[in-house]
């Protein structure tokens, strides 16, 4: 999959994506295109299916026994739900950062090096660790304590370490599911600056409850809401600057101005 050319316009794209948990349809008919090397935010009220859609992008929903999807998620011109796709390999190329920082109970160094080694990394591990920690804007803070336990870091540092861990396996897309909801405002802004830096080399898709964060940090925003049957639907997608100054759909306007529900 990784050998395929980069000529496709979008990093990843969904076409008529439906996701079900058993009989319940969690999201309905989602068609979205994600620009390469840009940050796209998915916002919307609780239960609108935004995390469900995010987890579809690297088939994390496979871990939920009742979950199944119809429609397409196109990555390098291939539907990732095609039986021939190796989900493990897919998750290497489409990494994920979670809500709560979840470093391994190991050293800072091992947190970064481990995933890469597991993926057959043969180069100089010291160099990889340094380069990756620099990319994650963490190197200067930890370079003298690489053997220290990752759990001794602050929440914001742990989250940047998790981002470093995701970067160490050289992904193309980074999915972020509420990456700052457990962090204080300053740590949050540091992550947002880091996202901006990383977007030069990676495509970032972020799900957030915090629409101010989507406004600050993203290039494109997609607003999801719940349909009358409680399925998640995509209401509007546009440049972030337009979504937050002149949204087209009244439902978007109501949500971003706090007049929702």
């Amino acid at each position, binding site marked *: 999959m990784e050998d395929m050319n980069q000529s496709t316009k979008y990093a990843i794209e969904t076409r008529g994506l439906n996701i079900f948990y058993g009989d319940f349809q969690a999201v309905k008919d989602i068609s979205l295109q994600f620009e390469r090397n840009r940050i796209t935010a998915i916002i919307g009220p609780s239960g609108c299916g935004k995390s469900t859609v995010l987890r579809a992008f690297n088939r994390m929903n496979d871990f939920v026994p009742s979950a199944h999807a119809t429609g397409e998620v196109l990555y390098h011109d291939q539907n990732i739900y095609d039986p021939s796709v190796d989900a493990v390999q897919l998750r290497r190329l489409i990494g994920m950062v979670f809500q709560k920082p979840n470093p391994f109970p190991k050293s800072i160094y091992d947190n970064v090096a481990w995933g890469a080694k597991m993926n057959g990394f043969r180069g100089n591990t010291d160099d990889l660790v340094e380069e990756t920690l620099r990319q994650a804007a963490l190197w200067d803070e930890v370079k003298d304590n690489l053997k220290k336990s990752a759990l001794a870091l602050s929440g914001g540092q742990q989250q940047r370490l998790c981002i470093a861990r995701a970067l160490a396996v050289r992904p193309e897309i980074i999915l972020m599911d509420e990456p700052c909801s457990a962090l204080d405002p*300053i740590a949050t*802004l*540091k992550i*947002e*600056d880091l996202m*901006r830096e990383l977007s030069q080399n990676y495509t970032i898709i972020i799900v957030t409850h915090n629409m*101010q964060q989507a*406004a*600050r*940090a993203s290039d494109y925003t997609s607003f999801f809401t719940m349909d009358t049957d409680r399925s998640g639907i995509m209401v509007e997608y546009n440049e*972030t*600057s337009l979504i*937050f*100054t002149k949204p087209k759909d009244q439902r978007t306007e109501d949500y971003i101005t706090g007049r929702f529900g």
Partner: protein
Amino acid sequence: MPRNTLNRQLNMVQDEILLLGSMVEQATLAAVGTLKSRNLREAKLVFEQDQIINEKRFAIENAILILMATQQPMARDLRTLAALLEVNTELERIGDYAKGIAKVTLRMGGAEVNLPMMEIDQMAELAVGMLHRALSAFIEENANVALAIPKEDDLIDALFNTAYSKILHEMVANPATIDSVNLALWVIHNLERMADRVSNICERTVFIATGELFEMDGMDEEDLNV
């Protein structure tokens, strides 16, 4: 220090404001130049190019609104953006004054009139100089410099009074040209108002630095100049 995006975009807006400022300065000097040269083609150009100034003003306003909506500026950042919005409008209005002066040239056409060009030239130079320094102080957020600039308005007012007397005198002496000479009142009024708007820009600089909103000394439009 976090907030790279806000800082970068704020700097971009400030650069655009400086650019708009220099467009307005040039338009003012060019407009007064046409009054002297009676180059109607040039006057028409200055008149028409106000459209470019107006478009830039809207583009800047849009960029500021996007920044406010997306970056949640607070405290000094918020004051800076609010002040930029205000200064943006002031600059556009100064552009209108320049356009108005170019319009006077077009109206006068080739009529031979005796204008107080020395005072008009000096007023324009002083006003443009004040504007230039006021914008620098604004971008540098230098309240001390900003506080001093409006005091120079006295010079402009003095020139206004002299020019006003000369124009009245000319009207009485040469009633045949009264239609054209009358237009010169418009010119000196515009230049005098321009300096007042420079004072408004200086007020905004102090606002950014201190958070205080107040009116600096200087004439308001409603005050009498005679």
